[in-house]
């Protein structure tokens, strides 16, 4: 179907980009092998070095090589420091660590823009050590490209040899096979781990420094989801173990992408092909991936948190909860009266984000499947809203949007039936990028073969206006009334999730997550249960998407709204709220959406607060905000009980109901029936 041809310089360009993906992939593989951590900050660590190099060379006029050594050391130092901070998380559920590295990348992004690291004039080109360039056809191969073509293979070779031959390499390999045994055989796994991160930091520095001259702004490049996707795909092709394969795969991907751009003019088609190729390659590699991944890995990825409410047999404690929820809902209902129009918009937005977070709570917290593309599903719902518009009653649009998205979610989740948890993260990320760049961006596509046009995208990708419908004749035109509507949607969603949690759905999802074989032996249909998780999650995300479209009233594919990074924010909400906790997801949405509003438009402060906040929450509040809320409820209960008790003794009667023990009885081995 596709005949690829291209002049030589396109190939060279492809190899050049591919070397970047390859180097990034090497860092990902190294860290993953050692700590089983998917390091989202891998690219960002190097950006600091690239920015600092520019500062030293341009502002301070340092010698290039001296500046290079200094800035690479800075990246190595930052990487080692990150490892020291994140170390205590390495035994915890992988999702938590992954989100912590997302937080880390926010912090590093902010650090890179601080005045003592950033050059006074960032638009100046990144320095190069020599001025060596040559012509290839009509195009010039720049000095940076020459440098990359020389340096990247040398670095890779050195790394592969180091892993094979040095004591560090041996320790690292031992640690990745079995950390406990390695430890008992005298491997200092902490030192090895720090060293590995340092090496990964150096790799990242080289990636960023070599790539920087091509970027318009060095600051934006590293978090770029497509870069991450390509590096991850390359790393996965190497089964997260094999350095050489990962590197070669990165180079191959680079060449492939350049060829694609040269031969396929439509960006949407390019995205479609990229999506299909990434999924296809992963499916082909699935055997190797399953072999490369230890059995324990799957469970740690899928490890979530308790979904059931802790035994609240205590009547008073339950009453405190009910009263608290009542108070909050009451206050939220009254809130739009006092808010300004702008804050009404914010309130609708927080409510809708909370519903999206709830959809992910189900999928990640209960079913243990990590999705990095939840906002891609929201986009599906939003598209349904755009196309149905006001022609159909709003509740029906929501149901229809939910149903369509549920089907899409099942399709996206299908690979997860065969792949271990981590790989779903990559396919969902690919899905989110595909939604933004291909589906939203293409108003209509002609299906080849049957000559029919299918209009699924935004009618005007740059600016599509969405008219707000009314609800049973009630106008939702004002921001205030829409805030109430969004609140109502949130409350209904919470009620629905509570039914699922308490009445049998959640326990099936958790059972399949915790012990697939055991669940199957018990007679739980494993495949159906997994797909159920995707369908339910997709349904909730879908109707949230419908509300999202009507809330913003205009949609486009260019700004950050449907950027995959929004999906990172959603998973961060779920994690800082406490995996699997319903109230936690809502608190997470309030925290992450509300906080930037409080700190205004200063991006550095936003990034630092949200980044440091994320890390601090994960480090010091393992149960998340939901846990905090629960503890608050306990404290209030103790207070209320003390008050009641005093009243009761005043009335000369024994305290009724106050004698219920707070702590469970100690555990004993015998089940008491013998």
């Amino acid at each position, binding site marked *: 179907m596709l005949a690829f041809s291209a002049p030589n310089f396109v190939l060279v360009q492809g190899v050049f980009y591919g070397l970047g993906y390859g180097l990034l992939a090497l860092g990902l593989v190294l860290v993953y092998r050692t700590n089983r951590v998917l390091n989202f900050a891998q690219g960002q660590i190097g950006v600091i070095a690239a920015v600092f190099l520019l500062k030293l060379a341009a502002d301070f006029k340092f010698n290039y090589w001296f500046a290079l050594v200094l800035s690479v050391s800075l990246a190595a130092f930052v990487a080692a420091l990150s490892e020291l901070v994140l170390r205590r998380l390495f035994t915890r559920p992988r999702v938590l660590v992954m989100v912590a590295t997302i937080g880390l990348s926010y912090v590093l992004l902010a650090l890179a823009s601080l005045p003592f690291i950033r050059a006074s004039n960032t638009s100046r080109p990144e320095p190069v050590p020599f001025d060596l360039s040559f012509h290839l056809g009509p195009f010039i191969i720049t000095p940076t490209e020459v440098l990359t073509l020389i340096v990247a293979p040398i670095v890779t070779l050195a790394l592969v040899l180091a892993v094979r031959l040095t004591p560090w390499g041996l320790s690292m390999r031992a640690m990745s096979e079995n950390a406990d045994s390695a430890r008992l055989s005298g491997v200092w796994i902490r030192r090895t781990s720090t060293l590995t991160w340092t090496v990964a930091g150096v790799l990242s520095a080289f990636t960023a420094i070599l790539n920087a001259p091509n970027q318009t702004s060095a600051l934006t490049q590293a978090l770029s989801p497509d870069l991450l996707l390509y590096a991850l795909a390359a790393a996965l092709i190497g089964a997260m173990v094999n350095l050489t394969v990962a590197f070669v795969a990165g180079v191959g991907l680079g060449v492939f992408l350049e060829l694609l751009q040269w031969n396929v003019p439509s960006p949407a088609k390019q995205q479609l092909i990229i999506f299909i190729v990434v999924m296809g390659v992963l499916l082909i590699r699935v055997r190797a991936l399953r072999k490369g991944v230890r059995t324990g890995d799957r469970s740690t990825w899928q490890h*979530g*948190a*308790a*979904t*059931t409410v*802790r*035994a609240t*047999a205590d009547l008073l404690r339950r009453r405190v909860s009910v009263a608290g929820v009542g108070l909050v809902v009451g206050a939220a209902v009254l809130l739009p009266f006092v808010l300004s129009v702008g804050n009404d918009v914010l309130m609708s937005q927080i409510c809708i984000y909370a519903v999206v977070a709830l959809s992910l709570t189900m999928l990640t917290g209960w079913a243990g499947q990590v999705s990095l593309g939840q906002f891609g599903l929201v986009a599906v719902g939003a598209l349904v809203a755009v196309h149905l518009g006001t022609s159909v009653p709003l509740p029906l649009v929501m149901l229809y949007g939910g149903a369509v998205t549920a089907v899409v979610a099942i399709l996206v989740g299908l690979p997860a039936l065969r792949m271990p948890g981590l790989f779903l993260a990559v396919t969902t990320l690919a899905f989110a990028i595909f939604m933004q760049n291909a589906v939203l961006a293409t108003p209509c596509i002609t299906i080849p073969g049957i000559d029919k046009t299918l209009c699924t995208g935004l009618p005007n990708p740059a600016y599509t206006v969405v008219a707000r419908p009314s609800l049973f004749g009630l106008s939702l035109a004002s921001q205030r009334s829409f805030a109430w509507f969004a609140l109502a949607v949130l409350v209904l969603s919470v009620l*629905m999730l509570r*039914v*699922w949690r308490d*009445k*049998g*759905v959640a*326990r*099936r999802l*958790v*059972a399949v997550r*915790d*012990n697939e*074989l*055991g*669940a*199957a*032996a*018990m*007679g*739980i*249909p*494993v495949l159906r249960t997994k797909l*159920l998780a995707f369908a*339910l999650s997709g349904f909730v995300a879908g109707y949230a998407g419908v509300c999202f479209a009507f809330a913003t009233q205009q949609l486009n594919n260019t700004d950050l709204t449907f950027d995959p990074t929004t999906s990172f924010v959603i998973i961060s909400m779920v994690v800082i709220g406490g995996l699997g906790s319903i109230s936690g997801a809502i608190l997470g949405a309030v925290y992450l959406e509300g906080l930037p509003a409080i700190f205004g438009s200063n991006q550095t402060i936003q990034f630092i607060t949200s980044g440091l906040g994320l890390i601090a929450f994960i480090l010091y509040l393992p149960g998340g905000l939901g846990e905090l809320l629960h503890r608050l409820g306990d404290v209030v209960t103790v207070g209320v009980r003390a008050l009641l008790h005093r009243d009761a003794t005043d009335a000369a009667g024994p305290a009724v109901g106050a004698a219920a023990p707070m702590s*469970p*009885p100690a*555990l*004993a*081995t*015998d*089940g*008491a*029936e*013998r």
Partner: protein
Amino acid sequence: MSGVSATVEAPAVHPSQLKVDDVHVSFGGVHALNGVTFRADAGSIVGLIGANGSGKTTTLDVVSGLVKPASGHVWLDGIELGEYLPEERLGVGMVRSFQDCRLFPELSVLDVLLLSEDACHEVAVLSTTLRLPWARRAERRKLEAVDQVIAAFGLERFRHHRTAELSTGTRRVVDLASIVLARPRLLLLDEPTAGIAQREAEAFIPLLRRIHEVADTTIVLVEHDVPLVFELCSTVVVMELGRVVAAGPPDQVRADPTALAAYLGASDEALMASGPLGEGGRDRTGRSEGV
């Protein structure tokens, strides 16, 4: 699939008869099972014993469908189980417990037991979501059944504990309780006493007997505690290197020199004394077992 409908018509009340016929399994180049043949009569308790790696757990894996045999057949009441998925085998009355007894770490005891009710009486998600009357009724019925079992097994005070918080012994009791809820006709137990102390293991004998009577089921168990097997089982099957080397009533096996050599390797007196041999003979590492 015709087999499933046949068992639906005949309600599962009587214990099943299991026949394992010339089963071969190999992992890579290792022949884990090399023509295993034995029979468990309806209502009997059959114990599989043998050294580590003799293929006991693999045999259970084949019977419960987790491992597909290279050749050979498993018959349950005259139904060939070859094409049945593990999930479907519950439908013909087969229930299995695992050696590691992990259960579901994050679920509470109540949820674990409700889960085994879920498998028997599934309620559609939509009717659960809309809280339709029959969904409510079903949930209430499940809760009643589970409450009875919780009371019968004395698990009342662990009701809301997460499984991960329980000791191994208690977890096994929960496992057995969930098995009783599944109303088995054939019960497969993989080392029910692994990881618990000798005295508690002895307490398992009356417990297993009671389950055998109450649930009216055939039991096949893999066990390293030889005295327990000889006391409990009506038939003992001795395995070595993927083969059955002796099978029969306990007295007959005890007298069989091949069986003694294959596994027991000790004198008859040591066999009768439940103490030292039981302690030493129990497999505590467990993991690599059967592979």
